[in-house]
């Protein structure tokens, strides 16, 4: 492997640990990133001559930490004193050098990237950059935006965090910790969903974004191993990912669950999903991600749509709807009810939901309604719903799919 590749690989796997440790020493995300970049530059300069070290990650960590310490000694005492007072830490920087804080460091970094002072979009971008180790260019490609936009967003986020003194906060405990964990999980979930059904553009999904979300979920479960919901989120994402190979046809067109070739599902990912969910349950978990993963399991183990246990899925959605109070979940429950007890039943629930303001403009509401109407043989009404859904859809591939269904119902 050449030196540049080795540097890139080490960075991608080590960025959360590296930045987490540097963040603890510098108490500033910007500075932590600067120091990390310097270590990477040093690696790029040295490795071609000296060869790639046996343990590139350890080399980067040592180099970066040494540089961070130099910065302190070079007159950043004020910053340090301030950091210690604010964070209530007694330890000296030298102590923190030896103690194994890796898990806390990474978790702190994740909390910071998903800090309440930041918007959801900014949280996902910052998490991709700091935790997943993606460059601004890679993030821009994933979000179909310009590198400059991403860079601006990141520097603005750093300013927001600095003015909120977010990096100086004490590690949250109790309910605050639970809330911060929940916000990290929400960001990971958002990231995955953006990859699973891209909200805009030509591609129906962006598998690379899904893979990053799985990796970030795994990092979270690594550093919060006693949190059942963290394992459940990982399970959910593994199970959803298992269907990625079947979700597009050879022409790149979307294939919905009903029509998917289940032999293309990734059985290895399913096995990892089962194992992660089992851990979550064994740890006593019964939260929203456990329930969602349980729903995903029902799909994963069903040989076909017809042989799926829709009664159980509908019951799980009901449990989820009670816990989350979400109309989108209710809509999913309507689909499951329609499968379990007939389209008539599903339609009744959808019609109740149609009035909910949160679903106005949500393309899946008319899409689901159209589906149920079609199953009842009310083709004209169904076609109208699919046209309406197509008008609301923001993804090009999905719009084409919906219009195709409308056309078929009209006998075109």
């Amino acid at each position, binding site marked *: 492997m050449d030196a540049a590749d080795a540097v890139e690989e080490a960075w991608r*796997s080590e960025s959360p640990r590296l930045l987490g440790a540097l963040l603890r020493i510098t108490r500033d995300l910007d500075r932590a990133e600067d120091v990390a970049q310097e270590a990477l530059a040093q690696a790029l300069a040295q490795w071609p001559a000296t060869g790639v070290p046996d343990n590139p990650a350890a080399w980067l960590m040592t180099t970066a930490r040494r540089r961070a310490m130099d910065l302190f000694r070079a007159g950043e005492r004020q910053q340090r004193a301030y950091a210690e007072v604010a964070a209530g830490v007694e330890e000296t920087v030298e102590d923190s050098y030896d103690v194994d804080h890796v898990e806390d460091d990474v978790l702190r970094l994740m909390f910071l990237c998903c800090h309440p002072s930041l918007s959801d979009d900014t949280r996902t971008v910052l998490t991709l950059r700091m935790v997943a180790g993606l460059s601004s260019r890679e993030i821009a490609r994933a979000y179909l935006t310009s590198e400059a936009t991403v860079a601006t967003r990141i520097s603005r986020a750093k300013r927001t965090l600095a003015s909120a003194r977010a990096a100086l906060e004490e590690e949250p405990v109790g309910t605050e910790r639970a809330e911060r964990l929940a916000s990290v999980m929400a960001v990971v979930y958002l990231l995955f969903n953006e990859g699973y059904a891209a909200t805009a553009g030509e591609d129906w999904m962006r598998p690379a974004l899904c893979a990053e979300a*799985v990796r970030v979920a795994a*990092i*979270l479960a690594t550093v919060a191993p*006693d949190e059942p919901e963290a394992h459940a989120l990982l399970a959910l994402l593994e199970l959803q990912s298992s269907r990625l190979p079947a979700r597009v046809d050879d022409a790149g067109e979307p294939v919905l669950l009903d029509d998917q070739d289940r032999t293309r599902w990734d059985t290895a990912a399913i*096995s990892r999903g089962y*194992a*992660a969910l089992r851990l979550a349950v*064994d740890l006593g978990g019964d939260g929203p991600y456990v329930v969602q993963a349980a729903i995903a399991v029902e799909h994963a183990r069903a040989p076909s749509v017809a042989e799926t246990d829709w009664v159980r899925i509908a019951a799980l959605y009901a449990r989820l709807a009670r816990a989350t109070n979400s109309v989108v979940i209710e809509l999913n429950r309507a689909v499951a009810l329609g499968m379990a007890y007939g389209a008539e039943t599903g339609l009744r629930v959808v019609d109740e939901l149609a009035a909910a303001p949160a679903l106005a403009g949500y393309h899946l509401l008319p899409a689901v309604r159209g589906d149920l109407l079609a199953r009842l043989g009310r083709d004209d009404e169904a076609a109208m719903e699919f046209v309406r859904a197509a008008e609301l859809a923001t993804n090009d591939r999905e719009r084409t799919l919906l219009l195709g269904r409308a056309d078929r119902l009209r006998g075109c």
Partner: protein
Amino acid sequence: MKFICMIHETHRPTPEPPPELFAAIGGLQAENTADGSIVEVGGLRPVQEIGAIVTLTGGSVSTTDGPFVESKELVGGYAVYDVPDAAAAAEKCAKFLAAHKEGWPGWEGWIEVRAYYEAPAP
């Protein structure tokens, strides 16, 4: 290289493992997912509970559904890793057993690390 690692249990100190064990092996499993080294994983139910042993001996094939005499040791699960070499696979297993030592004191067992044949060259 792909390795299948089968966990043989020889001593179980309590009927069910404590939550500490789940957190410990859960953390490892997540770590192996994050670094992409884990391919597949599965837990196996005790053969006394469900399963069979099918034998060919003395020219005849027979199936035993139990009771089994050989119940002192059982394979409790397996993991398939994709790692550079056997040493790396063994290291994963050593960590897995260390997690048992911490999370389920008194547990004893061993892990069989086996390499898959690569695709045959015609």
